[in-house]
């Protein structure tokens, strides 16, 4: 990479050698904060079930020393691919929401995606938050004026300084096809719970965390991993 220290990763190991390693790719930006606590509870449940669980910091996020304005989706995809390069045993990718936009370059035995979302919808929400905040501050902005400004310089969206490359990439990003994939939604036939990633105030849901861990473990078994 470019001379920066390796990113932190939160790892929860099982007592015995792991059946497989689950790499959790969280939702992007603010949605990551809203879901982190529940995802870590799911990681604990996975570890109790014999999996190693890994939650890597993306460059520019959390404890990373990389300025967010320097990164884009490509860099995040490469960083995730590098996380598991030295992992022993099979890797399962478990991504949530916008995490599904950056999970496909990992060398994995299986993918699991919860409520994957297109990048355009995420970007629209971030842009709208800026327009709404601007309106409160008596500044007239619009999605068009923000898109124009984002062509040439980083744009501050809900506290995130996003580079022109990040904004262009996000606006066009769709989850890429991977095999084998289980894509789950909330509700019947999927995960019982509420969309914590939408919540204005971060919450947690221990029951949902257990359901996430159980669903990933079942998918691992049906892929013949363990």
């Amino acid at each position, binding site marked *: 990479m470019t001379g920066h220290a390796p990113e932190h990763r939160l790892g929860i190991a099982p007592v015995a050698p792991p059946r497989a390693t689950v790499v959790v790719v969280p939702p992007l930006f603010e949605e990551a904060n809203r879901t982190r606590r529940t995802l870590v509870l799911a990681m604990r449940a996975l570890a109790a079930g014999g999996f190693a669980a890994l939650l890597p910091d993306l460059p520019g996020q959390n404890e990373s020393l990389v300025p967010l304005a320097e990164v884009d989706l490509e860099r995040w995809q490469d960083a995730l691919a590098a996380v598991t390069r030295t992992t022993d045993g099979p890797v399962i990718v478990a991504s949530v929401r916008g995490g599904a936009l950056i999970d496909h370059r990992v060398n994995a035995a299986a993918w699991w995606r919860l409520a994957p979302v297109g990048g355009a919808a995420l970007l629209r*929400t971030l*842009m*709208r*938050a800026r327009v709404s*905040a601007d*309106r409160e501050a008596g500044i007239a902005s619009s999605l068009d004026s923000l898109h124009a400004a984002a062509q040439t310089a980083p744009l501050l969206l809900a506290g995130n300084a996003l580079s022109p490359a990040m904004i262009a990439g996000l606006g066009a990003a769709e989850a890429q096809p991977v095999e084998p994939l289980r894509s789950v939604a909330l509700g019947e036939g999927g995960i019982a719970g*509420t969309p914590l990633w939408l919540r204005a105030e971060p*919450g947690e849901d221990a029951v949902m965390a257990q359901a996430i861990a159980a669903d990933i473990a079942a998918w691992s078994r049906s892929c013949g991993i363990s």
Partner: protein
Amino acid sequence: MTDSAPETSGVDAALRALLADVLGLGADRAAALTDDSGLFGALPEFDSMAVATVLTEMEDRLDILIDDDEIDGEIFETYGNLLSFATRKVTG
């Protein structure tokens, strides 16, 4: 989901569920919202990020497109204002 667009009562139910999800209201507080219930400026959780999230989720769940120009502060003043905006968009 059905093939047809949600009817008016369906819009009301969808909107209450959406606000419960975004604001963490719980089903009871969401059900107790009246037309006069204040939203933006009245509920502390209802900040500019919540406004943005509500708009994008409305598009997704009600299968509508919301133009930037249609949005003004009044829409988010009360639940009644938001519901009549959503209903107008759905019924076209």
